[in-house]
């Protein structure tokens, strides 16, 4: 039996129960139009669906019954006889449904003409009864009865060449049915809910329970459950329907309450864990571990009941698009991808309206008229695509059209007209900055207001709704190709993974969703805080990030000079992304990540937009949860437009990178000795310096400069080159273990992010080969050639690093954040890195015979944690001596000891990048030592 049919049976059985009850009520209150409307709609829906599913018998009866009820609606007197007749027809429908279910979707043979005949007679009588009032209708009646296909109350405009056959529907009727369907479905579902408790005792009319406001959404779930029950359903022939007994409906309130209780349980569990952590060897440890696991499972289970496929929010869209398509006279195709992606029903509810609005927008503003499309060489039919997929802890929903894209000039004109920005500001803005104006209140680019959209209440409301649930909306548009809105929302609102940080002596929780990365700033580290006038910025991969100290944003900075809040030589920067705004928030300390249950703030504090809630941490203290949107808002005043521009570039970069699927590295471009550009990986360069030519001294046949209290030998790219004769001489300084070498260059050209693909190898010493960098052939220089020129023994000491180049390292971490953060670090150190998203994948790689020289593994991973992973590898003789490093955000003596016991060679904190490199070096040198 197909799913559609099964769902139909479940639904219809429930609808019929309602009709039973309602009819009885109706008989007592013949003048209650609401009841009649409800019944009429229910039966109408049944009829419509039967026709759709190809069930002529059911359709025939339902149709006749509906016609009769139509008469009532038009004012015919309600007789007991008539009501009984309808009840009989409904019983007949039930019987057929029962057989239908038993026969796996095969409509039973049988003749209903007698019943239908009675119904028609009754209709005719009803007409006759009304005849005194309305002559026209009475006239129409017999004709209707004959044709067996009357449009109950409307006269037909559209005529067919031939009379309608029994069971056929006139065009007008069809059109009307379409228009009514939406409302009808809603009503039907609401009714169904009322019958919540009814399905069990389907045959007797159940008293309608007080209207529980259960969500209609549960329908598909139920159908699914029924599907699982499989064939069993067929055996239960009872009219109530076996299928409908396979699941129960639960009021959402009950679920919500359950969820709250589980949340409390999680909090208490966390508290207990924290206490036990403080007391080593507590006898509570084991039972608590068990409690912890059970709690986690319980939490998951309850969460699962809240999860619903996003398709539920999309249900109405095909209809809307169909209507729009007609109204706007544009042929439109709606594609839906990933409708089964699940998310919390609370979130689902919140995005329904914004989604509908966006689809309307795409149809109205986005897609061009067919003739324009033809002219642009596109197929006449426009396509709107809805796509949903999971990414990390959130869900991405994309609404895309292949229309004309956003008209930047028109937006510009509108921006000026509304005085949202000055002309010079607008000139400086990038296209994507201009696109963002459509999210402003009262902004509409539709040249004229149509009934569909263009009234300027829209995108700002959409954005607000999405931000309300902690989501962001972004826009990409290409002129002539279409535009796409990307909505990023959390999977659930109940539990949030947060990063606990400290600022101004207080702790705060920042939702991980908006944290892109963490940067540690230290004296001499590659990342430095710099200042443009007094504005602190961070140069991160050659992009400038605006920085603000969290305590400044929150107004809790206690020092005297707010400008000095940021310690240039020491601090953590939380790089956050909200919408397309990226910025750095400086904090005094970073602790760990914690899954927290958000509790709403007291009403008194709800006006603070910097916080989205608060919660109780494992140690029992209360912590405020930062609202990234609030922070971004406060940040906006700090961020200059030039910075915003660089963000755009970064985004483009990210996109490019994700498209190429290959990580790019920073290359320093320079010129030396020849006009063609040369490049060296930036990560190898310690410093860029410029020296006065007069500072260059000559001794023992070579050039030297005094640099940081020592003599630094200078090396030239080509033998026989010499330094400039006047002014300053730029050079690249390479340092290692207290020794430095200066590579003399003519000019430092640029720093670019690109993939280093050496395409043409080189025979020339000092050049690794040529690569295309910034669309130009560029020589990649071989540092290994130059370093011994400065210190002959450099190579000896560097042996390890050269060795490193051939070392394959397997990096296991479930968090893409850390994979992205640490992989480049390892690569820059010269290791050949392979990443895995978890131990399972790592096992597979190792089983496939991939050889690795060392494994770096995260500890906190789902399913198999790092300790277990290490232990199981150690059990295998092949991997007994494989160097393994543990990497964890939790570094305590106890966890280090645990790591050692599991068989890890070393245990490194996740944020300690130099530590990681040093530890890797160590394990390899130990290994060599053992081998020798």
């Amino acid at each position: 039996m197909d799913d559609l049919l099964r769902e139909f049976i479940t639904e219809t059985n429930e609808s019929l129960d309602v009709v039973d009850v309602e009819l009885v009520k109706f008989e007592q209150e013949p003048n209650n139009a609401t009841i009649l409307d409800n019944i009429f709609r229910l039966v109408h829906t049944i009829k419509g669906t039967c026709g759709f599913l190809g069930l002529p018998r059911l359709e025939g009866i339902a149709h006749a019954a509906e016609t009769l009820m139509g008469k009532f609606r038009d004012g015919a007197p309600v007789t007991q006889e008539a009501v009984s007749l309808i009840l009989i027809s409904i019983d007949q429908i039930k019987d057929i449904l029962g057989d239908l279910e038993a026969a796996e979707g095969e409509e039973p043979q049988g003749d209903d003409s007698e019943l239908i005949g009675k119904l028609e007679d009754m209709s005719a009588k009803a007409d006759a009864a009304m005849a005194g009032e309305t002559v026209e209708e009475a006239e129409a009646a017999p004709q209707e009865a004959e044709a067996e296909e009357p449009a109950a109350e409307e006269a037909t405009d559209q005529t067919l060449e031939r009379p309608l056959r029994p069971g056929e529907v006139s065009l007008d009727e069809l059109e009307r049915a379409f228009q009514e369907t939406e409302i009808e479905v809603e009503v039907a579902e609401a009714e169904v809910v009322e019958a919540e408790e009814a399905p069990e005792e389907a045959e007797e009319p159940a008293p309608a329970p007080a209207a529980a406001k259960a969500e209609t959404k549960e329908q598909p779930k139920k159908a699914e459950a029924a599907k699982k029950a499989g064939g069993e359903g067929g055996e239960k022939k009872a009219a109530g329907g076996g299928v409908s007994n396979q699941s129960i409906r639960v009021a959402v309130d009950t679920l919500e309450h359950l969820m709250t209780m589980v949340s409390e349980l999680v909090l208490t569990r966390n508290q207990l864990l924290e206490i036990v952590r403080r007391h080593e060897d507590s006898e509570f440890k084991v039972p608590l571990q068990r409690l912890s696991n059970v709690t986690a499972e319980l939490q998951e289970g309850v969460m699962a009941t809240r999860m619903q496929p996003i398709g539920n929010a999309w249900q109405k869209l095909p209809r809307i698009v169909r209507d729009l398509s007609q109204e706007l006279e544009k042929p439109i195709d709606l594609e839906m991808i990933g409708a089964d992606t699940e998310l919390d029903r609370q979130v689902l509810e919140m995005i329904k309206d914004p989604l509908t609005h966006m689809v309307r927008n795409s149809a109205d503003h986005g897609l061009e008229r067919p003739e324009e499309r033809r002219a642009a060489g596109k197929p006449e039919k426009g396509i709107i695509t809805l796509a949903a997929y999971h990414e990390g802890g959130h869900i991405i929903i994309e609404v895309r059209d292949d229309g004309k894209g956003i008209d930047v000039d028109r937006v510009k004109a509108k921006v000026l007209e509304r005085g949202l920005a000055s002309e010079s500001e607008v000139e400086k803005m990038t296209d994507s900055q201009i696109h963002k104006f459509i999210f402003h209140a009262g902004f509409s680019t539709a040249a004229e207001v149509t009934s569909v959209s263009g009234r300027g209440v829209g995108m700002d409301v959409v954005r607000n709704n999405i931000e309300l649930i902690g989501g962001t909306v972004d826009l990409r548009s290409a002129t002539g190709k279409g535009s796409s809105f990307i909505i990023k929302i959390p999977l659930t609102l109940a539990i949030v993974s947060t990063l606990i940080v400290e600022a101004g002596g207080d702790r705060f929780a920042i939702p991980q969703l908006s944290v892109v990365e963490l940067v540690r700033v230290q004296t001499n580290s590659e990342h430095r805080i710099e200042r443009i006038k007094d504005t602190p910025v961070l140069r991160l991969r050659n992009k400038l990030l605006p920085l603000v100290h969290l305590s400044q944003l929150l107004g809790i900075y206690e020092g005297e000079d707010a400008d000095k809040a940021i310690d240039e030589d020491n601090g953590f920067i939380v790089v956050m992304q909200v919408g397309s705004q990226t910025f750095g928030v400086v904090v005094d300390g970073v602790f760990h990540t914690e899954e927290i249950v958000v509790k709403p703030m007291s009403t008194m504090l709800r006006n603070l937009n910097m916080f989205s809630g608060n919660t109780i941490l494992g140690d029992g203290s209360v912590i405020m949860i930062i609202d990234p949107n609030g922070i971004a808002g406060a940040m906006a005043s700090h961020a200059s437009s030039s910075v915003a521009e660089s963000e755009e570039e970064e985004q483009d970069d990210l996109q490019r990178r994700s498209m190429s699927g290959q990580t790019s590295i920073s290359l320093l471009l320079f010129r030396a000795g020849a006009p063609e550009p040369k490049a060296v990986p930036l990560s190898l360069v310690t410093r860029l310096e410029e020296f006065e030519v007069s500072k260059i001294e000559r001794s023992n046949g070579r050039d030297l400069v005094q640099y940081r209290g020592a003599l630094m030998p200078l090396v030239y790219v080509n033998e026989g080159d010499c330094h400039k004769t006047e002014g300053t001489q730029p050079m690249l300084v390479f340092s290692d273990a207290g020794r430095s070498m200066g590579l003399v260059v003519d000019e430092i050209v640029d720093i670019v992010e690109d993939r280093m693909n050496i395409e043409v190898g080189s025979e020339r010493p000092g050049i690794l080969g040529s690569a295309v960098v910034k669309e130009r052939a560029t020589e990649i220089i071989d540092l290994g050639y130059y370093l011994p020129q400065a210190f002959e023994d450099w190579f000896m000491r560097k042996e390890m690093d050269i060795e490193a180049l051939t070392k394959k390292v397997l990096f296991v971490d479930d968090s893409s954040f850390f994979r992205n953060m640490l992989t480049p670090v390892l690569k820059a150190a010269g290791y050949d890195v392979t990443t895995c998203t978890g131990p399972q994948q790592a096992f597979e790689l190792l089983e496939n015979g991939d050889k690795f020289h060392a494994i770096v593994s995260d500890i906190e991973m789902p399913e198999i944690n790092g300790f277990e992973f290490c232990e199981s590898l150690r059990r295998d003789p092949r991997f007994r001596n494989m160097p393994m490093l543990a990497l964890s955000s939790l570094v305590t003596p106890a966890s280090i000891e645990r790591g050692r016991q599991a068989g890890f060679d070393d245990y490194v904190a996740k944020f300690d990048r130099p530590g990681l490199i040093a530890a890797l070096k160590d394990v390899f040198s130990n290994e060599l030592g053992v081998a020798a």
Partner: protein
Amino acid sequence: MSVLEHKLNADADENAASDMIQYVTVVIGGQLFGLPISQVHDVFVPESVTRVPMSAPEVQGVLNLRGRIVTAINMRRRLHLPPLEDEQMMAVGIEYKHESYGLVIDTVGEVLNLPAASAESNPSNLDRRWAEISGGVHRLDGQLMVILDVDRLLGAMFTEPMAAA
């Protein structure tokens, strides 16, 4: 706790006289205040209060009271009194519009059973900021007790930030 004992004693003494009101007395900056006992849920020592940046100055912060998050309001700041130095403060837990609040005060005193009729209205020259939260005054032996009107006390704090915003 002493409060409870008092309550019990008081109950025993005065057999639920309908025109009598029981007050939990608290001291804030040397002044005696009384809260109707029906509104007081707890008396506790406010510990590990988390500051809430950008909140109204009288909000001392939020704290965990047996798994509930309670908003602590510093009554000294509310009454524009200088802060109490180096002394353990106390707090009275009350409920307002289904949310928990803690009024941070200096010390908790005894429970008094006073006839409702003996309450006098606020003297007209009372500091406006005090008059705003006072529901009247009781004359006791040798001192006056100001009745704290919780609804007005907290209600005013809701509207203020709104008006400012």
